[in-house]
């Protein structure tokens, strides 16, 4: 023990210099197996309860939005009151939760099993539950694919600017500056208005989702890559100074090889985190556009269009707004919290 009464004396503790005992040697030599960066991050991620719960919610919501439409007895665009050759049965419209239309009531009396309308039906007699599920699927898909587009474009351009530097970098960053200062929402609205008119998607695979969503993807591709590009450029700029890049160059590796094999894998955590945080952003934008009537084409539902359709009967059918609203909040909240958790777990700067 050091002598606490003389804190500034240079007396050293001789005990600290004795040779290690066999026990101590054993203790030191039994190090834990070396862990990879990825496994470390996962461990930290799974210790974070909030992020874990968010992840589970995201997985459950995603899986059910994919699987449920296949097993559900109703479809999102079937108007239950409309039957070929018969007058429209309006008793199916605006059903309250767990109530049935006329023909269904008859079938129940006959002893048949009729699947309940959990959330009732909408003004056109369509099962509301499956519309919400399908809308979730559309919104998630829009968010996911928009983020992928942003990721690919931003990653490529950011990596090129960061690696080559010089004139290439200056030109790219000027373009980035200008796009960055464009008011994105206004440009999205403008392009949606125009592309919705000019794009013709009839008879293509995109016909069903409609030109509005395609134009939204285009706009995302045109505008939102800039922040991703900036981020990756910054990362690459600092990574480029590392010795291993120099040694790769010395052994004759080309620019593309170095970017793909050395630089991008090293900023993968930053890329994943910002992509994860991009998805809720895209879902927000989609719901905003749907609200303005520039979203998915009817009868295809999205969470935003469901909420905006619900505004018409807001006083009598409040739950029709509350349900999609809750789903949006739940999805966006869990994605945000999970993204935060990812950042805490994988951002190497925080580990130091």
């Amino acid at each position: 023990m050091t002598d606490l009464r003389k804190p500034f004396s240079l007396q050293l503790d001789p005990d600290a210099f004795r040779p290690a005992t066999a026990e101590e040697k054993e203790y030191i030599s039994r190090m834990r197996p070396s862990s990879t960066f990825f496994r470390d991050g996962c461990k930290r991620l799974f210790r974070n309860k909030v992020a874990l719960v968010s992840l589970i919610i995201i997985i459950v919501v995603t899986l059910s939005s994919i699987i449920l439409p296949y097993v559900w007895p109703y479809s999102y665009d079937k108007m239950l009151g409309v039957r070929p050759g018969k007058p429209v049965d309006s008793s199916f419209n605006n059903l309250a939760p767990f109530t049935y239309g006329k023909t269904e009531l008859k079938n129940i009396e006959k002893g048949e099993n009729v699947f309940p309308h959990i959330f009732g039906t909408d003004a056109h007699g369509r099962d509301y539950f499956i519309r919400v599920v399908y809308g979730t699927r559309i919104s998630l898909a829009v968010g996911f694919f928009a983020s992928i587009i942003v990721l690919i474009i931003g990653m490529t351009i950011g990596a090129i600017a960061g690696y080559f530097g010089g004139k290439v970098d200056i030109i790219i960053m000027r373009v980035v500056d200008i796009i960055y200062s464009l008011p994105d929402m206004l440009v999205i609205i403008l392009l949606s208005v125009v592309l919705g008119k000019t794009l013709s998607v009839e008879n293509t695979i995109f016909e069903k989702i409609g030109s509005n969503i395609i134009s939204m993807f285009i706009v995302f591709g045109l505008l939102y890559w800039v922040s991703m590009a900036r981020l990756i450029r910054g990362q690459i700029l600092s990574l480029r100074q590392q010795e291993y890049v120099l040694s790769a160059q010395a052994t004759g590796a080309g620019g593309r090889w170095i970017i793909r094999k050395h630089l991008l894998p090293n900023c993968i955590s930053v890329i994943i985190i910002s992509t994860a945080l991009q998805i809720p952003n895209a879902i927000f934008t989609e719901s905003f556009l749907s609200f303005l009537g520039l979203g998915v084409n009817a009868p295809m539902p999205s969470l935003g269009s469901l909420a905006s359709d619900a505004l018409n009967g807001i006083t009598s059918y409040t739950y029709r707004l509350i349900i999609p609203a809750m789903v949006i909040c739940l999805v966006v909240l869990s994605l945000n919290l999970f993204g935060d958790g990812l950042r805490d777990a994988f951002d190497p700067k925080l580990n130091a």
Partner: protein
Amino acid sequence: MSSKMMFYVLKRVLLAVVTIWIVITVTFFVMHAVPGGPFVGEKAISKEAQAALEAKYGLDKPLMEQYVTYLRDIVTRFDFGPSLKQRGRQVIDIIMDGMRTSARLGIIAAFSAGIVGIVLGAVAAIRRNTFIDKVIMVFTTAFVSMPSFIMGTLLLILFSVHLGWLPANGAARGGLVLPIITLALYPMSYITRLTRSSMLDVLGQDYIRTARSKGVSKPKIIFGHALKNSLIPVITYFGPMLAFIVTGSMVVEQIFAVPGIGRQFVSSITNRDYTMIMGTTIFLASLIVIMNLVSDLLYKVVDPRIEFD
């Protein structure tokens, strides 16, 4: 002002001017790429009437000439041409009419969001990890995860339909209260979170410890040292907040029937009033670009540590 700073300001102003020019150009050419033109789709009108209409609005001239005229009118006279659907009215008059309401709405929303957000953020940071901090963080996290049109409708249902405390119509007396709250909640929550994290950052700095060890009183440390320095990142949010308020007002004014520019814009989209869409887009975009410029310059002026590059 140092020459370096002059150079920086000049560069940023130039960038803003270029951005506005690009907005005008893109808006013009994109709108003119719409097939058919503005008068197609209305009731069938004769060829002569159509030609007369196009001549009246200058649509028969070559595209480049129209562009130069449009640009010149905006720059020299601040003139966006006549509205196509609201006959006899100039786009700029409609915009200015709407701006009177919208500006009031937006400014009150921005100020209340700023003040409440900073106070809540500071309280959360000072009382870190206590019950009050957790309550603030839960609510602000919930608010930033909710699109403004949902927030607006929920407030509408709660306060006008069920409780009947506030009018649902924005034009009525006291009708702007709910729109302002709707518009302010998201930026308020964002500012709260921003202030909290930056304040926590500042509170861990050496100079705070120095001040504390000298025996400076707690209020003096918080207001004199911590809060002042932690507000610097908040200033950078000023520009994005305005952009949010501008786009948010489209939704909010639609829900609460506020006669502002956002509602004009949305109805011009549904009416396909092309000159109105162009004019409003350019006007609002320029507003956002200028505000971004102001907030960026302010940021550099306030914090002397930041270098100009």
